[in-house]
């Protein structure tokens, strides 16, 4: 089931250097990968961006979950490839766009797998993001696994009423998801209202000045990671602007099926 994709974004506490890194350093690293992946549409560059992540995944000891989330994203990756190719892109460009998606997914999966929502909230607070905002964000992250569980229950309930998700043509299959999405959205809204009421009953926001119990401190390795990220990013921008990258010349495209495009 496609819900496995959420597993790849679930935090699990492990004693690895990646897990123990300051969330801000990790966020810088993720953003570095994010910007680089969006910057380039050259396939060699995107291959490098993808490969760079592998040692980090290895160091974080999250191979299995990472691989599972990659497998779960496969369908979307295939769709992106097919869409690009069908609508007139070359084989190489379609592959590059797919690789961009995979790299982005991998980077964010890595970040969320190794950063606890608590750390994330602390980092946001210390970056002077208003507490209500950082709280909203961490709660949203925290609720993802719950939502995934809900989604599974909704799917089970509707299948028990004779719904067959993978039946029918393409449009019918998309429509099949309406009975899944509506209960999911409705129960998410209900839950958020309940949560808000419960929070207010417990005095949320009563005192404007919050004193954090734990203060995050960047260590030497954290500064080092940030410095390396900035350096590599600068290098990437330089390459993007001034170095003409080679591209494999495989001029295969689909025959035009939509002549107006």
């Amino acid at each position, binding site marked *: 089931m496609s819900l496995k994709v959420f597993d790849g974004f679930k935090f699990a506490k492990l004693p690895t250097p990646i897990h123990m890194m300051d969330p801000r350093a990790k966020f810088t690293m993720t953003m570095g990968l994010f910007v680089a992946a969006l910057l380039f549409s050259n396939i060699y560059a995107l291959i490098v961006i993808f490969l760079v992540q592998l040692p980090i995944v290895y160091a974080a000891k999250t191979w299995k979950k990472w691989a599972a989330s990659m497998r779960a994203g496969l369908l979307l990756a295939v769709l992106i490839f097919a869409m690009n190719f069908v609508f007139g892109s070359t084989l190489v460009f379609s592959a590059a766009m797919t690789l961009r998606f995979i790299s982005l997914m991998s980077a964010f999966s890595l970040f969320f797998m190794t950063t606890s929502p608590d750390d994330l909230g602390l980092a946001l607070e210390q970056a002077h993001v208003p507490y209500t905002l950082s709280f909203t964000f961490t709660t949203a992250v925290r609720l993802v696994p719950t939502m995934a569980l809900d989604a599974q229950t*909704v799917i089970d309930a509707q299948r028990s*009423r*004779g719904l067959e998700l993978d039946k029918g043509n393409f449009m019918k299959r998309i429509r099949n998801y309406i*009975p899944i999405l509506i*209960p999911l959205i409705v*129960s998410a809204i209900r839950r958020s209202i309940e949560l808000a009421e419960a929070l207010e009953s417990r005095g949320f926001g009563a005192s404007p000045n919050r004193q954090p119990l734990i203060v995050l401190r960047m260590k030497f390795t954290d500064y080092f990671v940030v410095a390396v990220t900035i350096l590599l990013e600068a290098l990437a921008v330089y390459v993007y602007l001034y170095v003409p990258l080679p591209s494999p010349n495989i001029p295969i495209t689909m025959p035009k099926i939509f002549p107006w495009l």
Partner: protein
Amino acid sequence: MIRTEGLKFSYPSASEVLRGIDLTIGDEEFVAIMGENGAGKTTLVKTFNGLLLPTSGRVTVDGVNTRESSVAQLSRDVGLVFQNPDHQLFSETVREELAFSLRNFGYGEDTIDRRVTSILETLDLSRYADSSPFVLSGGERKRVALAAVLVWNPKHIILDEPTIGQDYQQKDRLRNFILQLNTQGKTVITITHDVEFVAECKPRLILLSKGLVIGDGPAEDILSDEQLIEKASLARPQIGALMHELRDLGLSDRVIDVYSAEQAILGALGRRR
């Protein structure tokens, strides 16, 4: 007939939830399943319509192995009503909500109309036919969810915690309705934590604990067994507790419902009504 043989089930990346269950639930039986939270009750019933397939062992419904059939096919005979109605209501009107499964099963519009109207009446929902299911109260939504399954008239009906969120009168009605379904020839399997509900219905009671069946028999026997009650995190029903306290007077503590208790007490007092 629903039969499980050596049924084991574990979710991926979790320990075994069902650890070898052998059960036979005959046609037209009325069964309650009780047990502590996490005992595997919901997991067990999800194997009855093929939503979950055994990791080992097998489940057969009227002789058909659930492995060899689809959920949609099995659901025609096994109607499973989920605990939380919010996990399944999605239509603009209650009428449409009830028609959903009938459309899935390929019924014609005439039949759909007839069946929906009839079930709306049966479950006291007619006045909400054209309302959105989302504006109804919790108890009403629960009845809509029940109606949404009963509408296709499955042979075996499974209810996951049907009494939650129902006021006393609705609960009474629900009990009568369930008993009525059973006398009409349906197999009724209900998961519940409500000992009073079970005491008044007196079904066959199956106790689950940590993925195993630890008790199976008439509700009177199970709910008066000190050890089983303890093991399954239950409590005696109030009447049962009272009769237990009064056992020194020579009263049987296997009595758990009001009517039988009345008979027993009057009998002990040497009077008859």
